[in-house]
């Protein structure tokens, strides 16, 4: 069997190709951040209420900020190459520790949002296509349009006002009920309960995109030969829609999914802020304001790896969904 070996080689090739991409991103990140006025020492001194110039100079020397730019850049790239993300002077903690503390929360939020967006989006799109130009289709169109147009932070706030303040169904923020101190299954349920509002809020925009895409793709397939064939051989309408049409309609959705991983990560900043979700997005935002560039570069670096890896995984999914797409690069 040559399949698995080829598959392994493909993964290896793809991962190898990621290395220069990720290093390139790290390089650009570093240079772009140099354009921001002020440094972490300015912010520290500003917050402290005062500092002598000597004290500030000593801090800059300690943080390596007194080195020439090319020296700092080489140092940084070397660190990245050796997977050393450095130290956050502001938090007095290694960058990797800070990131790993926050990463699970963000991944959980992203995964849940994605799940909701994909599942609901595809369902709505399929439903709309099945009832094209019917009242259900129109209703879905309106809902989708609103979901697409409303900014997520506003939606989040409104959700909090309604579901937390008004009705008290869901907590307004946080990831766990701190005072309850749940463990085991109770904790899982508690986190899930806290995740409902933020995950749904983050999902709305993407849900709209997937619903639209699915609807369009489904309609395009409507008159396709293989659909007609399926009908001709007596497949039920349900089977035609789900097994034959939907599977093909998923390709553009998958493409979009790959694209949107990055924007999902940035969308998380706002949602995490509104819902006090202890994730990476907020940490990134705060590190910009604080000019904590070691931390910010670390987060950006990890995000770039995350996004590129997920894209690779999605490429693999193409092969699963559509046998014509082959990872082995054979012509179909």
């Amino acid at each position, binding site marked *: 069997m040559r399949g698995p070996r080829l598959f392994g080689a493909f993964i290896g090739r793809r991962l190898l190709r990621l290395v220069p991409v990720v290093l390139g991103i790290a390089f650009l990140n570093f240079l772009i951040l140099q354009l921001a006025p*002020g440094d972490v020492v300015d912010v520290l001194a500003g917050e402290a209420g005062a*500092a002598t*110039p000597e004290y500030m100079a000593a801090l800059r020397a300690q943080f390596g900020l007194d080195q020439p730019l090319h020296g700092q850049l080489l140092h940084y790239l070397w660190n990245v190459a050796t997977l050393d993300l450095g130290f956050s002077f502001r938090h007095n903690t290694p960058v990797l520790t800070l990131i790993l*503390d926050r990463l699970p929360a963000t991944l959980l939020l992203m995964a849940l949002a994605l799940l909701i967006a994909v599942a609901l989006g595809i369902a709505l799109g399929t439903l709309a296509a099945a009832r094209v130009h019917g009242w259900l289709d129109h209703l879905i169109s309106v809902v989708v349009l609103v979901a697409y147009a409303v900014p997520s932070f506003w939606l989040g706030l409104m959700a909090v006002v309604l579901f937390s303040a008004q009705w008290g169904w869901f907590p307004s923020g946080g990831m766990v009920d*701190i005072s309850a101190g749940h463990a085991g299954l109770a904790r899982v349920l508690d986190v899930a309960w806290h995740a409902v509002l933020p995950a749904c809020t983050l999902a709305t925009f993407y849900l709209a995109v997937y619903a639209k895409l699915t609807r369009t793709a489904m309609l395009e397939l409507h008159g396709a030969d293989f659909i007609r064939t399926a009908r001709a051989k007596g497949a039920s309408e349900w089977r035609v829609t789900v097994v034959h049409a939907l599977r093909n309609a998923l390709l553009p959705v998958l493409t979009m999914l790959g694209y949107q991983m990055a924007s999902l990560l940035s969308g998380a900043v706002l949602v995490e802020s509104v819902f006090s979700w202890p994730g990476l997005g907020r940490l990134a935002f705060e590190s910009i304001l604080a000019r904590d560039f070691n931390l910010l570069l670390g987060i950006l670096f990890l995000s770039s790896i995350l996004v590129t890896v997920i894209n690779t995984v999605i490429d693999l999914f193409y092969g699963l969904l559509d046998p014509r797409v082959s990872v082995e690069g054979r012509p179909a």
Partner: protein
Amino acid sequence: MKRRLFFPRVALLAGLLLPVLSLPAAAQTQTAAAPVRGGILNVNVAPEPTLLTSAFITTMNIGQVSSKVLEGLVSYDLNLQPVPALATSWQVSEDGLTVRFKLRENVKWHDGKDFTSADVEYTLLNVWKKLHPFGRAAFANVDKVETPDRHTVVLRLSSPAPYLLNYINTYGAQVLPRHIYAGTDVLTNPANNAPVGTGPFVFKEWVKGSHVRLERNPDYWQKGQPYLDGVVFKFIPDAAARTVALEAGEIDVALGSSIPLSNLNRFADKSKYGINLDDGRYLSTIFLTQFNVRRPHFNDKRVRQAFAHAIDRNALLKVVFLGYGKPATGPVPSSVVNYYSPETRQYPYDLKKAEALLDEAGLKKGADGKRLKITLDYDAGGGVSGTRQAEFIKQSLARVGVEVELRAGDTATYLRRIFTDQDYDLMVSSLHRLPDPTLGVQRLFWTRNIIKGAPWTNGSGYSNPELDKVMEAAADEANPAKRKALIKQWQQIVQEDLPVLDLVEQTWVTVSSARFHKATAQGDGLFASYADAWLTPKKK
């Protein structure tokens, strides 16, 4: 240089430049009811602190959390007079050169070790005097610290430091455990993130991005206290979400104006909420506009005086600060009762006078009705409230033919422009004046405090040797009456020259559930230990 000055930072990242000091008639949460034992208090502080130790940093949000675990020698009442905490009594010698503290006995650190005079000596010499932004100035004159016994500390001063007793609470001079800090790098000691103190609450955990949890200290020196079983600080980055969390009962207290002023009307029902306007008296914060007097136009004091006449402080207070505060009359705020003097030159809102002064200074109106085009910098780091203040000033000045271009920057950008590049015309900011002018106000005007590159120094570049002399004399004057006279003269000079327009005395607003009570009101309530706080049990 004898004394370092400093400037606390007020505009927090979350953009809560909030306001104001107001009438004592303000609703108080203090009640006469008997304290109830038990319950966990949920407190909101914004933004999340980066450390949990205030001993060498004055960031407000750090102090608000840290003060429940680590204590100072005293706290301050509503008139900003010291009240015993770790020190039970203190005397200053006639000549002002010796200060003697008697320390509380039978006090233990949370790890069981005894608290003694050695801890105070260590922290004073190695932390406050060396690293603390106020402490460097407040303790600059301390030559020697003596510890004749385990509960006595004697400070020997090189010259009198009449302001010293104003900076020894947990915010100005927090006592650290010597056995944990001695011989380490204080700034990077892990205990900074997991403090070991003498306070009513013991540090349990800090989940970054979420909360800090404190539990009752069963061995607290004040018998019967604390009443609460614990305190949880919840960090909610979004201001609107904080408002909702308070309404939903998920937090009981929102400290340090973390609820936007515009939302305070939702907490007007006294049967459900309490609003405390006294917690931040100690900070004595003033909202100001500062001129860069290096700019030729602003080197002419008539132009600065014209601007003062053109800005309606009362309207600013009403429109932007929604009435939370009072109009400022000079560099020393009225909350600093000892030294405040309103007998200075005042600049009532008067557009005609403003125009006349500008004409006199040679800034005539052009064909387009404009006299001057300038920029105004403000810190937009994360919030919108700074914007409204800047816009108000822009509109005010437009009425006298001065066109203002607003320049927003985040905190780092803003600090760089003003204190390093010195490339600005006007700026707005809110600055704590603190209870003593020598430490809190002098830094704004002192020639020797014009320090390129260091934030919150004399950023206007104003220099007046006559004023320098008055301020320096006041710093060393041990006689209270003479000192008062000097500080009055100082206020008069500043109000004549106006390198800075002091506009509004801001009030820090604490909003709480009506279930929250505190036995004693404090002028430094933002940094209260909460040993005397309790919660009315929830009705089932």
